[in-house]
C-alpha cells in the first residue's frame, strides 16, 4: 500500500518535471534565433517532455492497484514506448541537423563559433 503510494508520488513528480520541460521547450522553439538552437529546444522536448512523463505514467500505472493485473501490460507498453523514444528521438534530430548543415539550407546567423567548419578547414 505504502509502496504503491510512493510509486504514484514519484510518477507524479516525473510528470510535473516533464510538463515543465515541455513549457521550456515551447518557449525555446518560439524565441531562439536560428535552426540549430531550435533543434536544441526540440531535443529538450523529446527527452524531457516526452520520455520523462512517460516513465512517470508507467510508475503511476504500476502504483494503481485498482487496475488489477492488467496494469502490468499497460506499464510494459509505456516503458517500451519510452525506450523507443529515447533511442529514436536523438537519432532523428541528429539526422535532421546533419542534413541541414551539409545542405546549407539554413542560416547560421547569429553564430559565435563554428567548430566543425574550423576542423574541416584544418585549423
Amino acid at each position, binding site marked *: 500500500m505504502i509502496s504503491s503510494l510512493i510509486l504514484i508520488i514519484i510518477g507524479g513528480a516525473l510528470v510535473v518535471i516533464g510538463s515543465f520541460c515541455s513549457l521550456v521547450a515551447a518557449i525555446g522553439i518560439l524565441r531562439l534565433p536560428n535552426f540549430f538552437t531550435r533543434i536544441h529546444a526540440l531535443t529538450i522536448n523529446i527527452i524531457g517532455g516526452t520520455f520523462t512523463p512517460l516513465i512517470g505514467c508507467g510508475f503511476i500505472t504500476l502504483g494503481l492497484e485498482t487496475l488489477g493485473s492488467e496494469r502490468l501490460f499497460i506499464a510494459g507498453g509505456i516503458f517500451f514506448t519510452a525506450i*523507443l523514444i529515447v*533511442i*529514436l528521438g536523438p*537519432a532523428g534530430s*541528429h*539526422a535532421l541537423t*546533419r542534413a541541414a548543415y551539409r545542405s546549407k539550407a539554413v542560416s547560421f546567423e547569429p553564430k559565435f563559433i563554428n567548430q566543425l567548419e574550423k576542423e574541416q578547414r584544418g585549423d
Partner: protein
Amino acid sequence: MNISYRFIGLLLLIAMILAISICTTISNVGFNIPHDIKYLSRWVIYSSYLVTTPIFSSMVPEIVNAVIWDYRGIDTFFETSVFYIAIIAAIALFREVKIELVKEYQYLGLSKIVKTVTKTLLVIGLGAAISIALHGHITPGGGFQAGSILASLLLIVIIVFSVHFILMKGLTKNLAIIIRSIGLIGLVSAIFIPILLSLIMNTYGFVFQNQPKVMSPLGLSYVADGHVLSAMVLLLNIFEFLAIFAGFLIIFILLSRPTKELEN
C-alpha cells in the same frame, strides 16, 4: 493595441482549456450515452464471439476483425483487389526501367549513428509487425496494419541505407512480386475453398464462410488446443500481411529511382 490583442487571445485560450477540462472531468456535462447503444453493442459482441452458440457467431474476439473479415468480407476483398490493380498499374508503368546495382552500398545513405539506430528499430519493428499480424483476431490490428508497419519500416531502411542495400541483400522487386502472388493466391483459395467443398460434399457453402452455419456444416474449428485461433480469420490475416507488405515494397522500390535514371 498589440498587447491587448495578445491578452484577449490568452484569455480565450485559458477559457477553452478550462472548458474542455471541466467537460471531460464532470461526466454530467457533455453527452450521456443512451441505453439503446449499449443494447446494440451487446448484440455486436454476441454475434462476434459467443461460445455457447457458435452457429450464430463469427467466433472472432476482436470485433473490428470480425466485421472486416466475416460480416463484410466481400467488401474487404474488393478493397484489396483495388489496391493490387493499382500496384499492377505501377509495375506496368515502370516496366522499362532497369535498376543498376551499386556494389559498394555501405558508402551510401545517412550517417553511422542513424544506421545503427535503424538496425535496432528493424528488429523491434519486424517483431511488432509479425505479432500484430498473428494476433489480429485477438488484439487490435490485423493483416493490413501489420503489412503497413513492415512496409513503412522498409521505407525507413530505403531512406537510411539507400535502395541498393535492400536490393543487394536479396529483397528484390521480383521476390516482392512472388511474395505478393503467394499472399493473393492464399487469400483467394481461403475464400473459395468452402464453395468447392460444398460442391464435392453436396451441401450448401458460402463465400467467406468462417464458421458452420445452420444449413452448411463446413468450417474450420475456431479453437485449437485451448488457444483461440478464429479459424479462417488468422489465415486471411497472414496472407493479407504478406500481400500488403510486398505490394508496398514494390511501390517503394520503384518510386526510389532518381529522376535522371528514369529520363534515360
